C-alpha cells in the first residue's frame, strides 16, 4: 500500500523542486510565477480565514450536481443513440453544436433563462461533462458482442435484463473511460460558469486573485481545482478497479 505511492511521492518532490528552481533562476517574477513557499503560505492564510473552504464547498457542490446531471443525461441519451442510428443521425448535429458554443456567447440568454444562481453553473458544468460520456456510452454499447445478445434472447430475457446483465457490464470499460474524461472536465465546467458572473466559488477567488495581482492566491485556487479534479478522477479509477477486475 505505502510502497505503491513512493514513485508518486518522488515525482511530486521532483516537481516541487523543479518549480522552486524555476522561480529562483528563470527570472520570472513572483507575481507571474510564485514560489512554492509563497503559495503554501497563501494557502494557510486562505484556510485559516475560511475563504478557501467556503468557496471550495460552493464549487464542489456545482461540480457534483453538474456531474450527476451531465452523466445521467449522457447515459440515457447515449444509450438511445447507440440503439438507433437514425436517431443518432438526426440528433448528433445538435449535440455536437452544443459543444461548440462558447459560454460567453450565450451568457445573457443563460442568465435570463436560468438566473444567475447555482443553476446556470450546474448547467454549464453538465454540458461539458455530457459529451465525453455520451460518445463513450455510444461506442461502448455499440461494441457489445452480438453473441451475448443471442444468449439473452434465447433465454427470452427482457429489454431491462439485457440492459443490466449484458449491455451495462460489457460497455462499462469504455463508459468509465468517458466518465474519467467527464469527471476531469467537470472542474473546468464549473469554473467557466463562475467566471461569467463571479461572486463566489473558486472561479471567483481565481478572478479576484487575478484582479488583485495576488498570484499566490490564483495558484492556491488552481491547486484546489487540481485537487478536486484528482479526487474525482481517483473516484472513477476506484470504480474501474472495482468493476473491471475481470479485464486485467
Amino acid at each position, binding site marked *: 500500500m505505502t510502497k505503491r505511492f513512493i514513485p508518486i511521492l518522488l515525482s511530486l518532490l521532483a516537481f516541487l523542486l523543479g518549480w522552486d528552481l524555476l522561480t529562483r533562476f528563470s527570472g520570472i517574477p513572483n*507575481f507571474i510565477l510564485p514560489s512554492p513557499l509563497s503559495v503554501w503560505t497563501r494557502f494557510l492564510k486562505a484556510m485559516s480565514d475560511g475563504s478557501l473552504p467556503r468557496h471550495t464547498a460552493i464549487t464542489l457542490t456545482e461540480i457534483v450536481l453538474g456531474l450527476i446531471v451531465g452523466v445521467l443525461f449522457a447515459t440515457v441519451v447515449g444509450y438511445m443513440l447507440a440503439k438507433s442510428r437514425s436517431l443518432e443521425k438526426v440528433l448528433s448535429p445538435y449535440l455536437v453544436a452544443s459543444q461548440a458554443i462558447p459560454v460567453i456567447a450565450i*451568457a445573457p440568454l443563460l442568465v435570463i433563462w436560468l438566473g444567475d444562481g447555482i443553476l446556470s453553473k450546474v448547467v454549464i458544468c453538465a454540458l461539458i461533462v455530457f459529451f465525453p460520456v455520451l460518445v463513450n456510452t455510444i461506442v461502448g454499447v455499440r461494441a457489445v458482442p452480438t453473441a451475448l445478445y443471442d444468449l439473452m434472447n434465447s433465454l427470452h430475457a427482457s429489454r431491462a435484463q439485457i440492459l443490466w446483465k449484458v449491455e451495462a457490464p460489457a460497455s462499462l470499460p469504455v463508459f468509465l473511460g468517458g466518465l474519467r474524461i467527464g469527471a476531469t472536465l467537470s472542474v473546468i465546467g464549473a469554473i467557466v460558469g463562475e467566471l461569467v458572473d463571479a461572486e463566489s466559488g473558486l472561479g471567483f477567488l481565481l478572478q479576484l486573485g487575478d484582479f*488583485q495581482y495576488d498570484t499566490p492566491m490564483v495558484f492556491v485556487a488552481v491547486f484546489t481545482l487540481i485537487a478536486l479534479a484528482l479526487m474525482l478522477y481517483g473516484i472513477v479509477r476506484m470504480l474501474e478497479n472495482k468493476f473491471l477486475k475481470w479485464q486485467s
Partner: protein
Amino acid sequence: GNSKSANEALTHIRLPMGYIPNIQYAPFYVAVEKGYFKDAGIEIEFDYKFETDGVALVGAGELPFAVVSGEQVLLARAQGLPVTYVAAWYQQYPVSVIAKSELGVIVPQDLKGKKIGLPGLFGANYIGLRALLNAGELTEADVTLDAIGFNQVELMAAGQQDIIVGYAANEPLQLRAQGIAVTELRVADYAQLAANGLLASEKVIAEDPELVRAFVGAFLKGLRFTMDNPDEAFEISKAYIPNFSELDANVQQQVLEVSIEQWKAERLGYSDPQAWENMQNVLLDMGLIAEPLDLSNAFTNEFVP
C-alpha cells in the same frame, strides 16, 4: 524634440489596451494616423488583451507600457509589481450606476434597499459602486448586490434588473438606444478617483526615460487633437474598429462625446495626488489592499509636458 530621422529604425511597442477596439481609443488612433508616434520614433502595435495580463507583463518587464485603470496601479504595486502610472487620460472615474427612470434614483441615498446588478464582486464597476455608496453614506449591507456578468444591458432590457453598474460611456447610451429611459449616478460626480491612464514599467523609466517622455507626449498630442477635433478623430478611428459600419453611428458619436467630457483637464496627462489618495482609501476600505502604499512611486507627473 525626440523625433528621430525617418530612416532610423522605429522603436516597436506592443501596447496592451485592456479592452476591445473602441471609439474611446480615438486619441491613440489619432496619434498613429497623425504620425505623432512615428515622430516620436515609436511604432505602435495595439494588443487588446485582458487588462490584468497587460499589467503583469509590464510588471515583468516584458512590455514597457499598458493602458490601465487607476485601481490597477495600486493593486499591482501592493503586490510588488514595479510599475508606475505616467500619464492620466481619464480625469473622471468612468463608472456610473444606472437606474430605470421610473425608480427616480437621483442621489446615491436613493439606492438604499435596492437590488443592484453588476458584473462581479471585483473590478472597476465594483470599486466605483463602493465609492458611490460611501458618498451616500451607505454600506454594502444597505443594498443587495447581484453578480450578473457583463450582461447588464441585456438583463435590464429583458426586465430582470432595474439598477446596474456600468461605464458612463457605454451602458447608459446603449440602454437609451434600446429605448429604455434611465437615470445615471456618475461616480465622478461624488468622488474624485484616479482613473485610466498610461502605465510604464520602472524598468523602462530607469533605462529609457526619453522613450517614456516621447510616448506620453505623442499620446497627449493625440488626446489634444481628439478633444479639439472630435469629428475628424471619429472619422480616423473608424478604420481601427472592426465592423464599425454595423454599429449605430449615433451611439458611437455619443460615446466619444461622453468620453471627451471625462478627459477634460487643465493640464492634459496630469495626475491629481488627491485622486490617488481617494482611490487608496477606497481600496483600503474594501480590503483590496492591506496597508497604505507609498503613493509617490505609484504615479508621476514627471513625463507630462
